């Protein structure tokens, strides 16, 4: 599964389908407020787009673009973003993760958006990291 795919159908379909899957994954993350979705669901869809690209183009090509170091950094950045919003609310004078002191017209909605993006980044990085590790073990 690590090598470039040999069947023409797999190569053509997977490569053409990947941008649409990525846009759909980003849409599900950002529209978690008004339609079913949110951070976890969109993160899994985004991770599956990378797995589709590995199936058709091989592990080396994808690791040149989305390297193992960047995947590990992405996994940690999401949790940092989430905890960072909590500490920011603490510095502004309220309890931990109390969004009502953020500077916006609808502060709780803004706080929820930032933490959903954080959770989406973490889930994407975690699933792609597990996939890379399982594939490149000999």
């Amino acid at each position, binding site marked *: 599964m690590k090598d470039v795919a040999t069947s023409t159908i797999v190569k053509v379909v997977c490569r053409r389908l990947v941008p649409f899957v990525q846009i759909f994954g980003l849409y599900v993350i950002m529209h978690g407020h008004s339609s079913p979705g949110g951070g*976890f669901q969109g993160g899994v869809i985004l991770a599956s787009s990378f797995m589709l690209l590995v199936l058709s183009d091989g592990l080396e090509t994808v690791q040149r673009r989305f390297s193992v170091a960047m995947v590990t950094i992405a996994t940690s950045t999401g949790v940092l973003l989430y905890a960072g919003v909590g500490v920011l609310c603490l510095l502004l004078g309220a309890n931990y993760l109390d969004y009502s002191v953020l500077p916006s017209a609808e502060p709780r909605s803004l706080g929820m958006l930032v933490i959903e993006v954080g959770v989406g980044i973490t*889930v994407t990085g975690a699933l792609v990291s597990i996939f890379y590790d*399982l594939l490149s073990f000999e």
Partner: protein
Amino acid sequence: MLDFIIGHFNNATYIMLMMIGFYAMTGKTNLVKKLVGMNIFQWSIILFVVSLSAKRGATIPIVFGSHNPGGPAHLDASNYVNPLPHVLMLTAIVVGVATTGVALALLLRIYKKYGTLDENELLKRARSSG
């Protein structure tokens, strides 16, 4: 009697799914089949708890038309499905994914060291190699 059957047949379905997973976990000797059985067991519990949130004649827990000026009328709790079991089971699904990933990694290391994934054969080789 019919009322009882209509109200409780989904419990019987989820318990049957749970017992399929339970039999796979205890009755098979291949480690990958045990892992699949554990996954089936987990999913049956998740489906069962989500089914506790149903209400007759209610719709999904998303308010439509909330961006129009004036907004929707006062929301009535019996028109919307209970959102709390959905939220709790989102966490359970993600925990299941993480557990399956770690279990697969362990299976890879076991196969590399002992050369087999059968339970009885594994015990023999582990005992003889110390």
